[in-house]
């Protein structure tokens, strides 16, 4: 058990309130100045099933989830059955007195004694957990006031009463869990998850349009934009299907909106035709794909990194694109902001490729610096350069993009091959000129590629290559590795296009190179092989629907090294 963090797992059936307890506790932990990382596992059902909400709180920033549990909070017996094994030595079980915790280091909550109604049992659990990890009661009290304030003073007071009783009750108990963590930065950290951070990054980039069809685990992006953006003027629509979502967003973008669509793999498959439309019509669009395991419906609420191939190759024909893969909420924010700038500058679809684990993973995050963000490119509202040609042939492939309706100049977008003035053509020379023009934009996108980050030893014995949120598990595995090899991690937050000179030396100077990915076929390693010829043979792959953990990576390393 690490002394720098505590892993609290709340388990129960959907509908029992574990997310409410988890979020309140997470928020209190953040406000108390601890670092935080949440991993949520849930099932595709509204009630019942077995779900967990894991909070890893730390003096240092936890990099990823962990499998060993320090405090297991059980809302039902199934939670004990499923997770007791993972409770670490000296770990604590917190459960209602009605559950069988015989022989365990347990706090058996007398719900009837602490709470007058079953409605308040979760507040009792919250109080017990809060006291156990030494949170100032005032922080939880304030949170309860904010949460239940709308329901009236009586409800607030009833909750506060249960909270106080729970705190007092824990103080009288004998249990073996006495670890406390120092708080590191008590002031002003946000608590948000990956989906929220993508939504905020979009708003910071001026995103003012979202069309979407609800699909787990991507829906939170649209929910964030609607909740926070609509009051500022953002337009939104929940449409009939993903096909409509993408086409509507392209229409809006053509007419001057800064548009985003969000979906997961299955929905994105439906959007693909319109991805090509964005490519040929040169209409900017930011497309957020939050991965879950497929094929088809797969494991709809779990996590995986298996849609890289889909996104990198999406659409028919050839046109430029870039694909970002955030590792953290900070990445989600800044990369989404950047995606808008690239989409606008290069007038082509740009992708943010997230996954369920990151989407639902709350973290403590320093407020984003809005003042330091670069300006996002803007289209033209007026044209003064003589005859306007929407698809003018230029050296860099970028044609002036004018928004229709702001002047008498006509703006015409087309899905067919077209002349510079947008008129439909089948002329072979025009086809070659236009297709080449579009592909010339790749050179600019290439110049702007964010190279991978490298952590650990120079010229290591073993280099782990990863992308997206798998980074945390790799870094922690590297820190905890006790063998005699030197290790390093190479992490890509932009996965397409790849710019060889940014990383080839790292690959060739490492003793062995290991791909660590959340899929079964090492899709990113294959992409590297395709684009560079460098073949990564060793692999640590996870595709059971669960997020990569440091334990999983360490086990993989021990098998390979």
């Amino acid at each position, binding site marked *: 058990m690490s002394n720098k963090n505590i892993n609290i797992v709340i388990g129960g059936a959907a509908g029992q309130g574990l997310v409410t307890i988890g979020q309140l506790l997470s928020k209190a932990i953040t*406000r108390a100045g601890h670092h935080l990382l949440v991993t949520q596992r849930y099932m595709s059902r509204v009630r019942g099933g077995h779900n967990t909400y894991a909070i890893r709180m730390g003096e240092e920033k936890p990099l990823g989830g962990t499998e060993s549990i320090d405090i297991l909070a059980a809302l039902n017996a199934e939670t004990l059955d499923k997770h007791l094994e993972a409770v670490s030595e000296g770990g604590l079980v917190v459960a209602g007195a009605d559950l069988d915790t015989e022989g365990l280091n347990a706090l058996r909550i007398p719900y009837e004694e602490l709470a007058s109604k079953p409605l308040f049992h979760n507040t009792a659990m919250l109080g017990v957990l809060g006291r156990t990890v030494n949170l100032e009661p005032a922080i939880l009290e304030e949170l309860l006031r904010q949460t239940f304030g709308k329901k009236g003073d009586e409800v607030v007071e009833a909750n506060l009463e249960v909270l106080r009783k729970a705190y007092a009750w824990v103080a009288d108990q004998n249990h073996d869990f006495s670890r406390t963590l120092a708080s590191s930065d008590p002031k*002003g950290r*946000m*608590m*948000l998850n990956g989906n*929220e951070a993508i939504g*905020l990054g979009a*708003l*910071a980039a*001026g995103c*003012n*349009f979202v*069309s979407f069809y609800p699909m787990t685990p991507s829906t939170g992006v649209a929910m964030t934009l609607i909740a*926070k953006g609509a009051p*500022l*003027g953002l*337009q939104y*629509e929940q*449409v*009939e*299907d993903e*096909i*409509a979502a*993408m*086409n*509507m*967003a*392209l*229409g*809006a*973008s*053509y*007419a*001057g*909106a800064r*548009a985003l669509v969000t979906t997961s793999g299955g929905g994105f498959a439906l959007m693909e035709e*319109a991805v090509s*439309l964005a490519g040929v*019509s040169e209409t900017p669009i930011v497309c957020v794909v939050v991965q879950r395991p497929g094929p088809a419906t797969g494991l709809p609420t779990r996590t995986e990194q298996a849609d890289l191939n889909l996104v990198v190759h999406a659409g028919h024909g050839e046109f430029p694109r870039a694909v970002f893969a955030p590792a953290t909420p900070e990445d989600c924010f800044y990369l989404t902001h950047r995606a808008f700038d690239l989409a606008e500058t290069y007038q082509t679809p740009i992708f943010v490729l997230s996954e369920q684990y990151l989407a639902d993973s709350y973290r403590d*995050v320093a*407020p984003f610096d*809005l003042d330091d963000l670069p300006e996002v490119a803007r*289209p033209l*509202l007026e044209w003064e350069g003589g005859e306007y040609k929407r698809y003018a042939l230029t050296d860099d492939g970028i044609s002036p993009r004018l*928004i*229709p*309706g*702001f*002047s*008498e*100049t*006509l*703006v*015409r*977008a*087309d*899905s*067919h091959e077209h002349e510079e003035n947008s*008129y*439909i053509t089948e002329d072979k020379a025009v086809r070659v000129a236009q297709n080449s023009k579009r592909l010339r934009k790749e050179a600019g996108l290439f110049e702007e590629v964010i190279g991978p980050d490298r952590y650990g030893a120079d010229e290591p014995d073993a280099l782990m290559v990863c992308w997206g949120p798998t980074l945390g598990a790799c870094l922690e595995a590297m820190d905890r590795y006790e063998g005699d090899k030197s290790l390093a991690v190479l992490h890509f937050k932009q996965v397409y296009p790849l710019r060889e000179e940014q990383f080839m030396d790292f690959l060739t100077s490492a003793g062995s190179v290991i791909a660590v990915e959340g899929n079964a076929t090492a899709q990113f390693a294959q992409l590297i092989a395709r684009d560079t010829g460098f073949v990564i043979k060793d692999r640590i792959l996870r595709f059971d629907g669960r997020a990569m953990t440091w334990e999983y990576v360490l086990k993989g390393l021990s098998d390979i090294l």
Partner: protein
Amino acid sequence: MVSIEEYGEFKTAWCPGCGNFPILKSLKQALAERGLAPHDIIISSGIGQAAKLPHYMRCNMFNGLHGRSLPVAQGIKMANPQMHVLVTSGDGCSYGEGGNHFLSALRRNMDLTVLVHDNQIYGLTKGQASPTSARGHVTKAQPEGNRSDGFNPVSTAVAMKASFVARAFSGEPEHLVSVIKEAMAHKGFSLVDILQPCVSFNKVNTYAWYKERAYILKDHDPEDWAAAMTLSEEFGERIPLGVIYRADKPVFGHGGRLAELAYAKNDLKAVLQSYI
């Protein structure tokens, strides 16, 4: 005053005698009579011969994908509510590939005008049945005759209480002009299903066939839904032309032009603050 010449003259890929020509001319005429210049409108279209229409006139256009003209048009309208947005496309595009979009657009009721060139056949792919082909219609792809019932867009739209439902005929251009003008004047979603003979591939629903059956409505009250419902079912021996149904409904719409919308930094800072 806007003259029809401002909309230009272009060489088309349409067959001589195609029912699309009178529609193009009537649309230009209607726009000119409404005083709308090429830069005042945006036409969204899908794929097919009808969907090429915006290529044959001066105007803003988004010529997108098969069946997807409606989502694009609605996105345009949401981004710029000040523009007059029209959709032109065929029966396959609007009622087949785009069927779900059609139903949703009727429900959503944005202020758009949709002109469907309905020739009851797939012309561009050389003569297969379309969603509006009648049961039994024989084609090379349906040698035993079409095995499905024809889709009736007018009765569907009336059944859903769409806010403006009309039928016109490209063989009655004067009437067509007046219907398009009325549709554009209507606040809300307006559908004009335009009967348009395909001279190359539809040997059943010809000019003569329509001429014999189509009649212009005189004493119909389009606000009488039950009467409209009955009328919308009339398609065979007699085919009514004109405004079948009209209703005042809430229009999906709002504020300003998104190209001009920029968030104040303080508003964004307050948004971030809400996560603390």
